[in-house]
């Protein structure tokens, strides 16, 4: 009985794993790169330096900017360059036509920064849940379904393993498909808690979009029910302007007062609403440093400087919800922890990739014996290889496009993203085409070489088009640029090595299977 259950779970693991593996590979790879979104933003705008200035240091520039605006702006928010995600002073406000505007400023001179238009690390990171070219709701449902498949694959994967601990230390090198299986197990078990955490918390980030019905049962249907619940749950309070004039305290005093209330935590942002009104509100927050402080903020009366409410810490389901969200986003993570996030994310990506390869490897000897396998087998192998190589190649092209697309081109940022998907599309056409023609081996090798070349080109093109060559970056101790250069070279080396290995492996295999093919033909004729 027990083994029958395990068998059916193995079946479920195989198919649940395969069906949406292409979407999952995309989600995991872009999401993993997203842990360095701000760093990639910096790499993709090499003309702007990274600033570091406290709230007090940047305040004169803020005042100067606010005063320079006519008519006066009544609602605005300011973020100070005190954290990795905020490399410059930024001010958001609504202009005369009530359109949202955001300016990036040098916090010392007030000069407006106008880097090249780029999709940046943010777009790459956002694609992991928003996808691209699809309406957002459709994208969320696809990502939600993929997350459920991932979750099922993880649980069934654990169930299938009788000796999860022992197999963790098993690696039968060279013997395919056992080597692939052991590699898959290693990648999965090594960071299993991370995989579970990242998958389940993935649901939480889209929680009420994926499952609005329970909320609807209590708060009513549609947008109204949603906002009724959100206003209550996320304590969204907006105070309307009263129309009665009252001057607010100047920003210096407000910041000093908030510093006292915040017990000297560094100020990362503030916002002022209904300025010069009796209902003026001043909100202020600090840097996100622990798992539970992601939504901490303090509300002050902007006219008197008195504390209205300190929204710090959460209770009941909210603390659970926010801690898990913070775990997923990793915004609190210091640099070493960020690298750990990145590495475990890569393990997850490798887990999905090895699982995809495993599906074909297990069916390979049978396919070779029957002269190439069924159409479904060949099509799947084609999709697998063009996804596993096409997306990484696309990311390299995304970086290359940032350096190579002329700066004055309109819709420049959009074309960076298009370059990624065009590359992936071409890889898919080629890979699937070759696989259907029973030449998947050739496609594996050639596409791996091409991807390796793309990665090797990134540091070269970077050196030619910017003055941030590796020596300059090392001298400047600009670790973001050094890191991207080195990672690209490293990836390129691994891919070249892999391509060589695959070429040799397919050669020896074709010699062997050539014999079996002949045998097969002889049997057919007889």
């Amino acid at each position, binding site marked *: 009985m027990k083994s029958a259950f395990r068998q059916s779970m193995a079946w479920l693991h195989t198919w649940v794993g395969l069906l949406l593996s292409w979407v999952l590979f995309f989600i995991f790879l872009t999401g993993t790169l997203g842990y360095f979104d701000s760093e990639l933003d910096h790499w993709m705008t090499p003309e702007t330096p990274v600033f570091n200035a406290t709230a007090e240091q940047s305040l004169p520039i803020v005042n100067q900017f606010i005063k320079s605006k006519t008519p006066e702006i009544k609602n605005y928010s300011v973020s100070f360059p005190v954290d990795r995600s905020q490399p410059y002073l930024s001010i958001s406000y609504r202009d005369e036509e009530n359109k949202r505007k955001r300016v990036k400023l040098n916090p010392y001179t007030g000069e407006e920064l106008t880097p090249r238009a780029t999709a940046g690390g943010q777009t790459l990171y956002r694609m992991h849940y928003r996808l691209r070219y699809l309406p957002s709701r459709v994208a969320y449902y696809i990502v939600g379904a993929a997350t459920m498949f991932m979750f099922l694959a993880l649980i069934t994967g654990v169930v299938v393993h009788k000796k999860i601990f022992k197999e963790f230390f098993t690696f039968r090198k060279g013997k395919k498909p056992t080597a692939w299986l052991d590699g898959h197990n290693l990648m999965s078990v090594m960071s299993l808690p991370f995989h579970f955490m990242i998958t389940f918390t993935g649901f939480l980030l889209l929680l009420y979009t994926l499952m609005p*019905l329970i909320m609807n049962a*209590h708060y009513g249907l549609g947008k109204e029910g949603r906002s009724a619940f959100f206003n209550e749950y996320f304590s969204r309070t907006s105070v309307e302007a009263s129309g009665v004039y009252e001057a607010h305290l100047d920003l210096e005093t407000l910041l000093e007062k908030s510093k006292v209330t915040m017990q000297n935590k560094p100020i990362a942002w503030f916002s002022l609403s209904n300025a010069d009104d009796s209902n003026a509100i001043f909100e202020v927050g600090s840097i996100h440093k622990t798992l539970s402080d992601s939504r901490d903020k303090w509300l002050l009366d902007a006219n008197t400087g008195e504390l209205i409410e300190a929204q710090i810490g959460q209770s009941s389901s909210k603390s659970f919800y926010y801690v898990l969200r913070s775990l997923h986003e990793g915004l609190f993570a210091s640099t070493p922890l960020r690298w750990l996030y990145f590495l475990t994310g890569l393990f997850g990506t490798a887990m999905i990739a090895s699982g995809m390869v495993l599906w074909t490897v297990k069916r390979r000897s049978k396919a070779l014996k029957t002269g190439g396998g069924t159409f479904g087998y060949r099509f799947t192998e084609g999709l697998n290889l063009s996804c596993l190589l096409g997306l990484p190649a696309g990311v390299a092209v995304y970086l290359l496009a940032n350096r190579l697309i002329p700066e004055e081109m309109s819709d420049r940022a959009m074309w960076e993203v298009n370059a990624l998907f065009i590359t992936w599309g071409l890889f898919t056409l080629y890979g699937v085409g070759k696989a259907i023609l029973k030449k998947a081996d050739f496609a594996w090798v050639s596409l791996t070489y091409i991807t390796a070349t793309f990665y090797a080109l990134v540091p070269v093109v970077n050196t030619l088009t910017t003055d941030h060559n590796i020596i300059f970056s090392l001298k400047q101790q600009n670790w973001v640029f050094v890191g991207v250069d080195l990672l690209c070279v490293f990836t390129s080396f691994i891919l070249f090595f892999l391509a060589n290995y695959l070429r040799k492996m397919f050669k020896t295999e074709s010699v062997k299977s050539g014999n079996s093919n002949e045998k097969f033909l002889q049997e057919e004729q007889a």
Partner: protein
Amino acid sequence: MRLALNSYQLEVLFRSLLAIIGGFVFSLLLSLLISFILPTEKMHAVAWSTMLFFVVLPAVVMWSFGIANYKSGALHLVLSVFILSGLSWLFAPVGVFS
């Protein structure tokens, strides 16, 4: 391409429908019932049970593919859905016990 499904494919199709439709309805009703009876503030009850939905659903999916006899399994699921909807109706804010 042949259109008729063999018995293996039929079973896979049936179990998938059981997992997707049955799993969805069952998990939704169970979470809904729990959201009605949790002794916390309404908003927290909604949040907890919405999160619970995403734990119950994969369990039901695994159950649909794990049970030996999927036909009697489907019957049990339909029965439990009836029981759950009855209980939800009893405990709903506009229901009998409110």
